[in-house]
């Protein structure tokens, strides 16, 4: 009986294969863990194969990896048309409309997904140097993913999206602006009708950490890649002590806007991110804790 659990995708795996057949993580390497407990997600080896359903995919390249699918006749995946790199003429491509079109449009999210159905080959890639992250999901398992990090999912993975819990407003009553440091929406993927496979693209490197119940952590909002749905989030604002050199600026010019994460559960961050831009004083926000140094 196979009792090996892949330390990266947390699924029963094959210890005799050089890479995990479900997530592509190398089996034969030592885990790289920082002193504070972040586990570096190893890059999927060039040309590694991952199995799902009757189909498989192969990862080509290491700078901006390409996910090349060999789809069996009854298997299908969906993705945004922006990430399609090439396809066989035989692969059937059709539209997969998404609900909430106007809100998705306003949030800069794709309105329509493309469904690619086998038999045939197609390949997907993002446009950032980084890593492809494969997350096999068991039946009923759900995961939250930051918007725009989704690369593709197998047909049995349900895709929902919810307004972000993190926002703040600046400006006066006449000219109020709402900011979403983690994006306006968050994606939630859940597997139904058996196990499925979710692929993300992480710009830069990716790191994973398990939070214990009640344990909290501050991360740059735009660096969060994915989290278990059991992990809760809120806003945390931190203001440095005024050192006297910034009398012409408000203190908010040097503030930090954090996402506070509460365990239990798994969280993953990416090393390329965009810090929130300096804006005016915050006049309203989602639930937030504040600290003045």
């Amino acid at each position, binding site marked *: 009986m196979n009792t090996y659990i892949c330390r990266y995708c947390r699924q029963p795996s094959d210890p005799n294969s050089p890479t995990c057949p479900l997530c592509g993580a190398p089996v034969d390497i030592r885990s790289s863990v920082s002193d504070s407990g972040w586990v570096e997600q190893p890059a999927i080896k*060039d*040309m590694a*194969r991952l199995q799902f359903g009757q189909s498989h995919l*192969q990862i*080509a*390249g*290491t*700078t*901006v*990896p*390409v996910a*090349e699918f*060999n789809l069996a006749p009854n298997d299908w995946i969906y993705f945004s*048309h*922006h*990430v*399609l*790199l*090439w*396809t*066989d*003429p035989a692969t059937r*491509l*059709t*539209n997969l409309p998404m609900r909430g*079109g106007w809100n998705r*449009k306003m949030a800069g999210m794709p*309105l*329509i997904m*493309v469904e690619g159905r086998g038999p045939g*080959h197609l*390949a997907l*890639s*993002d*446009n*950032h*140097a980084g890593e492809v992250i494969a997350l096999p999901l068991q039946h009923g398992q759900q995961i939250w993913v930051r918007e725009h990090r989704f690369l593709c999912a197998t047909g049995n993975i349900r895709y929902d999206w919810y307004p972000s819990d993190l926002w703040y407003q600046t400006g006066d009553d006449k000219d109020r602006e709402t900011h979403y440091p983690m994006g306006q929406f968050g994606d939630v993927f859940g597997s139904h009708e058996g196990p499925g496979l979710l692929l993300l693209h992480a710009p830069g490197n990716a790191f994973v950490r398990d939070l214990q119940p009640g344990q909290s952590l501050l991360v740059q909002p735009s660096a969060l890649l994915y989290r278990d749905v059991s992990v809760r989030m809120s806003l945390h604002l931190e203001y440095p002590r005024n050192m006297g050199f910034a009398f012409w600026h408000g203190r908010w010019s040097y503030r930090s806007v954090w996402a506070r994460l509460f365990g239990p559960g798994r969280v993953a961050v990416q090393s390329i991110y965009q810090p929130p831009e300096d804006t005016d004083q915050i006049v309203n926000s989602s639930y937030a804790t504040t600290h003045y140094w």
Partner: protein
Amino acid sequence: MIQCRWCQAQNQPGTTSCQTCGAPLDEKDKVSDSGWREAPRLRDMTEFQFSGSTCQVEGELVPVAEVALHPRDGVYFEHHVLLWKDESVPLSSLNTGGGMKRTIGGMPHIVTVANGPGRIAFSRDAPGELVVLPLHPGMELDVREHAFLVASHSVQYSFIRIKGLVNLLHGGNGMYVDRFVTAGAPGMLLLHGNGNVLQRTLQPNEKILVEPGGFLYKDSSVRMEAAQMPLKTGHLRHGMYLAEMTGPGRVGIQSMYVHHHAD
């Protein structure tokens, strides 16, 4: 002798990288199940020869091509890819023709020429790979705009205007494609591909559909036409077009690109 599987040049036994293109000779080719071959990743500080000159590749994330020019050799390039040069290396400009039309198309109509002796180095501004393409006499290669890094002076540089309204409006490759041609003498062409670069050789009449932003180069024998997919995309639900490549010949793609219909 060892034959390089990338450029087919012969190398002395015991050499670990090709003297003509720098490809590692002691590594297996990386070919996906559907036949895409990764362009060889040149090892840091690899050297190769062209004409009487030497090119050394430095760095792996955004590689630099450092050329030591022989007194009788020259190279040409778009001026903004020049990273550094010896003070003594003379520069001149070469008009490629097409003037205002090329300028409107966002393409240079003047390239810069550097002549030996001396050292000069080039790089583009994105993570990616150097693709070394030694050109045998009588070859014609089409390259997407702004992917060309540097070419030896024996390679003729021209451009072809993309024909057909559908190709122009929906092809995603702009108005022009650069064309590099060798006549009687061999030459050297270096491209910069964003992300990873993959190449596939199409058989006669074999077809593949490629996102136009991902297209990097092709043999001129490969036909490229915009093909409409049975899909609607974006808020305005406009049609989706891919570049249909029809063999025979090589097609090169890059994995990092801006989608031509990004909205």
